[in-house]
């Protein structure tokens, strides 16, 4: 008797094509992506029909959350360091190289000067957790916001100011920020919005 041969079918699937596709996709995403910046507070910008895109470099972003806390972020690390040193000089705080190094890697900053040293001494994950409770003071008695803007302008002439605020932020806070900017003769700036599709024209 001859043995009955069971035909064995190979279950191997050719993955080459699949691999080609994935590599292509991966390349696309790597080239087009700009990483989402970590922001201490969640902000939903209001929609507008404006189609001007924000430039990539030399941006000083002012982030305003619904309760009126103000944070700032800059895209160049050397600018951040110079700004910090200038603000420190103005407000009488000097920073050690270690603290400057820690400040350099901050994505967004917004701590009153008197708490800055204590804040920088904290480990990274704790900083993230408490940053949202701070914010740069903008009131007229202790307007550190002005000092920051002035220092940032002095470090980089080409800096463009962009305000990113939540749609529910009361105008009072925006007014404070805008008045501070006006006082510094920063009369041109950008308001960041998200795209709204306009149906009725």
């Amino acid at each position: 008797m001859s043995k009955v041969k069971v035909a064995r079918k190979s279950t191997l699937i050719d993955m080459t094509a699949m691999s080609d596709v994935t590599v292509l996709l991966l390349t696309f995403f790597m080239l087009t992506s700009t990483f989402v910046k970590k922001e201490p507070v969640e902000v939903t910008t209001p929609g507008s029909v404006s189609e001007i895109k924000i430039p990539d470099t030399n941006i000083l972003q002012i982030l305003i959350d619904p309760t009126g806390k103000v944070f700032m972020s800059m895209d160049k690390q050397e600018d951040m360091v110079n700004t910090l040193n200038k603000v420190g000089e103005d407000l009488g705080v000097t920073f050690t190289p270690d603290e400057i190094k820690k400040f350099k890697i901050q994505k967004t900053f917004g701590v009153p000067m008197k708490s800055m040293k204590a804040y920088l001494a904290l480990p990274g994950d704790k900083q993230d957790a408490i940053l949202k409770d701070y914010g740069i003071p903008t009131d007229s008695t202790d307007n550190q916001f002005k000092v920051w803007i002035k220092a940032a302008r002095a470090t980089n002439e080409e800096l463009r100011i962009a305000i990113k605020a939540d749609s529910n932020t009361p105008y009072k806070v925006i007014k404070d920020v805008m008045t501070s900017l006006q006082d510094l003769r920063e009369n041109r700036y950008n308001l960041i919005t998200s795209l709204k599709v306009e149906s009725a024209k």
Partner: protein
Amino acid sequence: MAELQTNEGGGKKKGGSKQKKISVHVDFTPMVDMNMLLITFFMLCTSLSKPQTMEINMPSNDPKVTQDDKVKVKASEAITLVLSGGDSIFYYTGLPDYKDYNSLKLTSYKADGIRSLLLKRNAEAVAQIAVLKQKKLELKISQEDFKTQVSKIKEGKGTPVVIIKASDRATYKNLIDALDEMQICSVGKYVIDKITPGELFLLKNRESKGALSQNSAN
């Protein structure tokens, strides 16, 4: 399957010996797995759309600027928008009339509200810009020509001047919406100004249906 076929020493041996074929199959499955993971990572971590922006010019509040240097606006061309709380928007044209509480009119952010008003006031410029847009679509004029001509029309005589004043109760969204309407209605001359006590009085007067102006008249 991806495979490599190698001829091992086929040419060296004489006498027509059979060529040994070794096929090297490479399994791409782990590679695909890894790529998929990377793609997922990039997809989650990126923001594909860049945020939009609005460029605004604010008036300088330099104390050196005297009353004479300030730009005077014809009362007939001026429209003042007062943004109030609860998404309400009021407007008055020309000079405020403190005696008549109805001079401050309520309107809305909807298409039939402030937009229709501004489009009506700015009808000439809007029509001209529409013609230009059509021309641009037909590629009769270049992008730069279009821009210069549009700004010329916007600056032209007879176009309304809109003064946006937001009260403390307004939200940032209201301000952006108001600025948006300026763009939709092709208003070239607009400014964000601080609210004055006069306008606050008008708002309160309107809420109380003229009781305040009655009191001051008596």
